[in-house]
């Protein structure tokens, strides 16, 4: 699993971490039961404050994505399939939001935009 | 032992040995020279007394210099128990040195003091000199200097005084030792010092540190008056000199006490001379005689039945000190105003200011001497001999022809008195 954070992007680092971990879980890179590297390891590797990493883990635990275990690294929680699907949809929506604004800015018809999307997805399938 | 390490490690540098050895040798020679009794110096000098004071004093001075240089380092402040550790080392070395010196000195047949007195004196010298250059208050430094000079030039008198009042001597000496040491290690002094630059230790020459120190000193002093704007600057050296004098130069009533500093020393010397040898004259009379003898040195009015040839030397030395001070004190124009000057022009201006300052200094000294001379002459109902004053202070001979003519011309009531 590769995690990349940009401390200078303006987006708080903990949120970047959370998004990436959520994405990895949703896309299957992280399966239920997989261990996440410890705060210490991640802090050294990414060069960010360990409290930021703790914060991300704590919030992910609240969301139900991770499970923290005292003295041991955190693990990915098993989630019900429908919950997983809902998460995936939510992530896609977040990713597409700026695209939607762009469609408006370019002055394109929503239908034309959907057609473009369809075309792209067809290309990928092949 | 590790508690004492900070002090002793600090002393373990080459410069301490070089400077220490040099100063010790110089002191030894001086004492050896003084210790030869002759009619002139014998009444004034007590070599054993001086040795008991002097060697620990030198050690104290060295230690004090090193410590104060250290306390000016920015890493010193956060060190735990730094003052306590240094103080312990300081005290231990002071005790050791004073003990050794006192033991040796008390063996000398010329000594009239017991071991304890010499020990106490040694400690006093150590504590006093440790504090000497490190004082933050300028006037305290001058007090220290005055005390030192007194001790050196009136050692016989003080030695006898000490022998007569042993208990008081012990108490005062120990008092001086303690107070001197405490001042060196006061926390509030440390706080004021900790982030200020200091001169580098005399045995080393650190170019960067000296330059930084001089610059910061001048920046801190700031211009003495409101700044001299470009509008007032004309062309020609004189205008520039005026500008520099206005900003930094030795003009103004504030500089008068500074110029007179060397004279205090002279005054104290003359006063103690008068006091210690007054015989059955009143103090005022004795002082008048001393001053008269020092300034005019007429053989018809012997100061105290001996040749007062030494006194013009004292005046000369004091005057020379002052001249050095005046010539060497940096005088700067604000950088923003000085930029159009070339380096040679700047040098000319600086020298010009120096000369001007020296001139003013001499004028002030001369004024004071003239006033004092008049007062002394009046007290003794003796003539005021201006040409003698001129020749002695400027030339050092008994008289020169030119000085005599000048003096006769200027002197009120023109008294072409015969000299020897």
């Amino acid at each position, binding site marked *: 699993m590769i995690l990349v954070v940009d401390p200078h992007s*303006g987006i708080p680092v903990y949120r970047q971490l959370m998004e990436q971990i959520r994405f990895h879980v949703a896309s299957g890179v992280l399966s239920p039961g997989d261990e996440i590297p410890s705060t210490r390891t991640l802090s050294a590797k990414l*060069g960010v404050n360990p409290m*930021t990493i703790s914060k991300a883990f704590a919030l992910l635990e609240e969301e139900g994505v991770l499970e923290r275990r005292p003295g041991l690294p955190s693990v990915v929680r098993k989630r019900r399939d429908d919950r997983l699907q809902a998460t995936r949809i939510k992530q896609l929506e977040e990713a597409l939001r700026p695209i939607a604004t762009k469609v408006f800015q370019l002055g394109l018809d929503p239908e034309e935009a959907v057609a473009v999307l369809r075309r792209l997805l067809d290309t990928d399938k092949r | 032992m590790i508690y004492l390490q900070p002090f002793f490690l600090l002393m373990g540098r080459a*410069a301490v040995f070089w400077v220490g050895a040099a100063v010790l040798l110089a002191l030894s020679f001086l004492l050896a020279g003084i210790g030869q009794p002759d009619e002139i110096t014998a009444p004034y000098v007590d070599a054993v007394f001086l040795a008991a004071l002097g060697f620990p004093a030198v050690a104290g001075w060295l230690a004090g210099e090193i410590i104060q240089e250290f306390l000016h380092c920015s890493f010193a402040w956060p060190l*735990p128990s730094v003052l306590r550790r240094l103080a312990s080392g300081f005290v231990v070395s002071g005790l050791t040195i004073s003990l050794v010196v006192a033991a040796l000195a008390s063996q000398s047949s010329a000594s009239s003091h017991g071991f304890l007195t010499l020990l106490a004196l040694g400690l006093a010298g150590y504590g006093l000199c440790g504090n000497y250059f490190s004082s933050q208050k300028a006037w305290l430094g001058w007090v220290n200097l005055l005390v030192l000079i007194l001790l050196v030039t009136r050692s016989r008198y003080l030695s006898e005084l000490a022998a007569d009042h042993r208990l008081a001597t012990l108490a005062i000496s120990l008092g001086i030792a303690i107070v001197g040491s405490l001042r060196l290690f006061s926390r509030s002094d440390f706080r004021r010092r900790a*982030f200020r630059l200091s001169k580098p230790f005399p045995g080393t020459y*650190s170019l960067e*540190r000296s330059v930084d120190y001089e610059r910061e000193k001048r920046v801190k002093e700031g211009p003495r008056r409101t700044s001299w704007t470009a509008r007032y600057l004309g062309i020609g050296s004189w205008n520039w000199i005026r500008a520099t004098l206005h900003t930094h130069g030795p003009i103004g009533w504030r500089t008068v006490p500074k110029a007179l500093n060397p004279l205090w020393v002279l005054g104290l010397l003359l006063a103690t001379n008068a006091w210690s040898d007054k015989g059955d004259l009143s103090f005022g009379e004795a002082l008048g005689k001393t001053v008269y003898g020092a300034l005019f040195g007429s053989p018809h009015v012997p100061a105290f039945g001996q040749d007062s040839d030494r006194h013009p030397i004292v005046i000369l030395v004091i005057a020379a000190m002052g001249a050095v001070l005046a010539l060497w004190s940096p005088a700067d124009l604000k950088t923003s105003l000085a930029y159009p000057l070339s380096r040679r022009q700047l040098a000319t201006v600086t020298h010009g200011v120096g000369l001007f300052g020296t001139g003013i200094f001499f004028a002030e000294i001369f004024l004071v001497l003239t006033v004092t001379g008049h007062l002394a002459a009046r007290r003794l109902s003796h003539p005021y001999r201006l040409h003698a004053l001129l020749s002695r202070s400027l030339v050092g001979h008994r008289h020169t022809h030119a000085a005599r003519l000048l003096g006769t011309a200027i002197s009120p009531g023109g008294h072409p008195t015969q000299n020897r």
Partner: protein
Amino acid sequence: MDSVFETHSLTKRFDDLVALDKIDLKIRRQSIVGLLGRNGSGKTTLFRHLMGLQLPTEGTVETMGTPAAQLDHDELIRIGFVPQEIRLLDWMTVQQHLRYVSCFYPEWDMDRQKRLQRELELDPTSVVGALSTGNLQKLAIILAVCHHPQLLVLDEPVSNLDPIVRGRLLEFLLEVLQEDQATILVSSHVLRDVEKIVDWVVCLDRGRLVADEGLDELKERFAEWRITSRNGDLPSRFSDTFVLEQDIRGREARLLVDNAQADIETFQVTHHADVTTRPLNLEEMFPLLVSAEGE
């Protein structure tokens, strides 16, 4: 003692210059705090008060639970300080200097010292007086950390270090945080470095406190809005109070806004425009911080 550094109404006046103006701060344990501010904003003065080097005109300062003016042995063995103007004993070699300072502390970690000497590339045999400013900084840092302080205060520690060494130092600071459970107080102009490792930001402007919050919260305080009008030109100027800076070109505009007061929905409706937001990083938001309160 849950706070390592606490001030109440701290004020410092130099004649008529107010260097610090009623500062109320409470720095908690185990965090890395970045102290930001322009030159002359009072950062160094604040640090000096922390160490008891300067005494306040009004108010109180407590470091490690003790009034700063009375810091003594027990507190000083747990504090490490790297000042901005570094003056060391010029005549010693690096090795001698390290040994000298180690005498003062009951515990001195030789392994850490050797490791840092290697990582920061400091030659132990060079004479301190001959060191460049960068190397002086390295030595000053090593002197301050080998006794495992619980409070480490660094005033502009990286200004003279090259990027590689800087990076290693910042990594090391993170390690100190975790290994020693230390609190680290760093002031630096290099905001990019500060941003990487701090979790709390304190910002001073002309002696006053303009920010005292977590870095993440601070990042959420401001935002950049890119605006595209849906019908015709945008007004020449937006008068909404939350708009801190604006740059309007015809149908498009770029605004810097105060997020707390901003209402994006109302704005979009009122001005018939679409807004894309982007958070600001520390470097971008710094000018807003120091001018927002000052004007």
